């Protein structure tokens, strides 16, 4: 009886997960918080000359890596996201000897299956990856260091590769490279242009105090100052403003150390306490919706698009949705620092793809990853379809999107963050379940008045220590 039930529960759980994901996908949600690796370190939008890299004399030769005979790349993509499919189509168009055998699955299922897929007899040449420390520890992922030198990735902004490096002790952030990003997302504050004008915002705020003044004005004007999600089903979205505040009041280095599980790292620091206290003030001042604890990601987004909420904290994976459903009315700025002229911090992570250690066409897959970052058409697809910065060499121009689109805002603000080296991974990604078991319930408690800023950090740190010891 009990076992039959535990079996059916699992099946039902799967169905429920599917239903949730399906709901999420209707508004092309990246469920960024659940995703242990989407966006980062937004690369630089620097220079102006636009050499077509595919035609550039230094571009690596396709035949060297993919050969001239027909090659079938075995790939695992994430269901619901067009970008890798569009890129693979374009790649085949350019290099007809390479075709694709693409399998796809929801991210959560992929996460559970990745170790088995990588260890199988037909390991993927290219696969969308969740957090990868354990995969590296188990020798399931190919070390990409040889490609770093062969393709000149070492000349890219270092922050692009940082999150995909894993040290010999299993700590992320340094050591050999084990994955590459198809693009690099950018997070910050989206705003409703009409409502922002209504409260007198003419330029983005330059300090946290400026931003808080805007929130107070919005509240006084009877508007919903911030639209955000914080229900368990999609995870605590208040982690977004919290981490932005952390980066405003302290350096990003220690936050990244904590996310990368560097020994001895703690989230319970004086700077983070200040940040959490600000967030608590926002909660008590009524800047978030009163039912934020039951608002899910898709719900929050649709409310913002429909005009409830002056601001929302989110990432550029929503650009396409905003441009489609509220064209011309959504703007974006990177979260300001505590003091004018201070650094801009932002969560941002690569859309991570790796190569199996036993992959049959590793060279060709690596060539594809390099092509995505350097080819003019591929970079344009990255921006148009993916809405995010394609990364790559800093001397390549970042493609632009349609005039007035929010994508142009996120790309230009991303350049600010890169200039300040303010990129961070997500605090939701430090351990497998720190988000579900730590941040989400503790942030909900803070909203419910069951906990203050100090115990929020203390409890999350305790959960972190517990999970790392398990």
């Amino acid at each position: 009886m009990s076992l039959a039930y535990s079996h059916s529960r699992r099946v039902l759980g799967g169905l429920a997960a599917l239903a949730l994901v399906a709901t999420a996908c209707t508004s092309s949600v990246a469920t960024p918080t659940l995703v242990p690796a989407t966006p980062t370190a937004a690369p630089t939008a620097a220079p102006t000359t636009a050499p077509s890299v595919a035609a550039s004399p230094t571009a690596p030769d396709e035949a060297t890596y993919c050969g001239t005979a027909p090659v079938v790349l075995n790939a695992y993509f994430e269901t619901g996201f067009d970008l890798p499919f569009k890129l693979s189509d374009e790649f085949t168009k350019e290099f007809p000897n390479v075709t694709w055998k693409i399998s796809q699955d929801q991210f959560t299922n992929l996460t559970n299956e990745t170790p088995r897929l990588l260890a199988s007899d037909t390991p993927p040449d290219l696969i969308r990856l969740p957090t990868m420390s354990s995969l590296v520890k188990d020798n399931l992922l190919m070390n990409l260091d040889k490609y770093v030198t062969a393709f000149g990735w070492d000349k890219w902004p270092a922050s692009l590769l940082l999150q995909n490096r894993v040290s010999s002790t299993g700590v992320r952030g340094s050591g050999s490279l084990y994955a590459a990003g198809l693009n690099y997302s950018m997070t910050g504050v989206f705003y409703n242009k009409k409502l922002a004008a209504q409260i007198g915002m003419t330029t983005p705020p330059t300090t946290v105090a400026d931003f808080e003044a805007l929130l107070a004005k919005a509240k006084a004007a009877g508007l919903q100052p911030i639209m955000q999600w914080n229900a368990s089903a999609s995870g605590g979205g208040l982690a977004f403003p919290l981490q932005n505040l952390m980066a405003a009041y302290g350096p990003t280095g220690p936050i990244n150390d904590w996310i990368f599980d560097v020994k001895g790292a703690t989230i319970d620091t004086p700077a983070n306490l200040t940040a959490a206290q600000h967030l608590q003030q926002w909660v008590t001042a009524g800047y978030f919706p009163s039912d934020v604890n039951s608002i899910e990601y898709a719900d929050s987004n649709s409310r913002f698009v429909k005009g409830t909420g002056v601001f929302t904290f989110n990432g550029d994976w929503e650009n396409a949705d905003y441009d489609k459903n509220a064209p011309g009315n959504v703007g974006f700025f990177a979260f300001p620092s505590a003091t004018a002229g201070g650094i801009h911090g932002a969560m941002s992570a690569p859309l991570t793809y790796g190569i199996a250690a036993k992959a049959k066409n590793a060279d060709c897959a690596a060539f594809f990853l390099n092509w995505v970052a350097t080819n003019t058409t591929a970079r344009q697809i990255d921006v148009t379809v993916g809405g995010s910065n394609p990364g790559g060499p800093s001397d390549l121009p970042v493609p632009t999107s349609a005039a007035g689109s929010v994508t142009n805002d996120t790309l230009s603000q991303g350049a600010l963050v890169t200039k300040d080296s303010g990129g961070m991974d997500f605090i939701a990604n430090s351990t497998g379940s720190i988000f579900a078991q730590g941040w989400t319930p503790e942030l909900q408690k803070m909203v419910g008045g069951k906990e203050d800023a100090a115990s929020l950090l203390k409890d999350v740190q305790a959960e972190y220590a517990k999970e790392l010891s398990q």
Partner: protein
Amino acid sequence: MSAADRSMTETILAGSDAQTDRQRRARRTFRFRKVRRETLLGWLFVVPALAIYLAFVILPLAITVQYSLYRWDGFNTPVWVGPDNYVNVFTDPDLLNTIFNAFKLIFFFSLIPVTLGLVVASIIRRTATGGLGNVSRTVLFLPQVIPLVAAGIVWKVVLSLTGVANGFLSVIGLDSITRAWLGDFDWALVAVGLIGTWVLLGLCTLLLLTGMTKIDPALYESARIDGAGAVREFLAITLPSLKQEIAVCVTVTVIAALRSFDIVYVATGGGPGLSTMVPGLDIYLLAFQARAVGVASALAVVLIVLILVLIIPIQWLSRENGE
């Protein structure tokens, strides 16, 4: 009768005796063979089901118990930790809290549906015969037919800040108590519990109503002649006659409460905080998200034992009283 005749008769008799004996022996052998063949045939019928039961119930149960003694992330080599995971289950306040929540749900999943089911069933039996009875039965049973995931999503909308539930409360002048029910620390578990009540009330009503049709109508007639009212009738005739059905209802609903997963997963995901976290959901999260398969298995084993500890006495009591 001549001596020869007599001797012949004796011979015949003796012969017949011998014959009967042989026949009897043959018959016994035949019967024995038949029994053996029947047994064999019986096993043949049982074996497929038994094999499936062993493979999909007993074996996973044994493996779960085995996992619960290891620390394992689902992929690397498991490390033997003995009873540590069980110590963890009984000392971690978060894990204990999930078990307490499951017990609180028994009130909503079991007590209310069974009690209310009895009342509704007797009302339907007494007043709603024919078409009306069919309609009410169908309406009440409908939640059993709707997939729980779909029901959970609809309930989430109904119980949201701008949902129908709050709209109704505002209309009747209770605007002050409206809230996001599934996002409220004090009310989320109650709200989830009431979804469970909605799901299980129909099942209990239908089971109890079926039980009532078995009761001899003459009993009610004589009770009425003796001047018994509806309440007396219910207490003296209906209730005692329904012991078996009530036991089934209680068993099914208590199990549903303790192992609840889908409603909670869809409606609240265990939140806010951990105020609606139940063992079923926590086992799933621990095993597949935290990759703490050992602790998850230990919690599963504890849950199985708890369910058995509650269910076996109910079964035992109902059987004893029934006989």
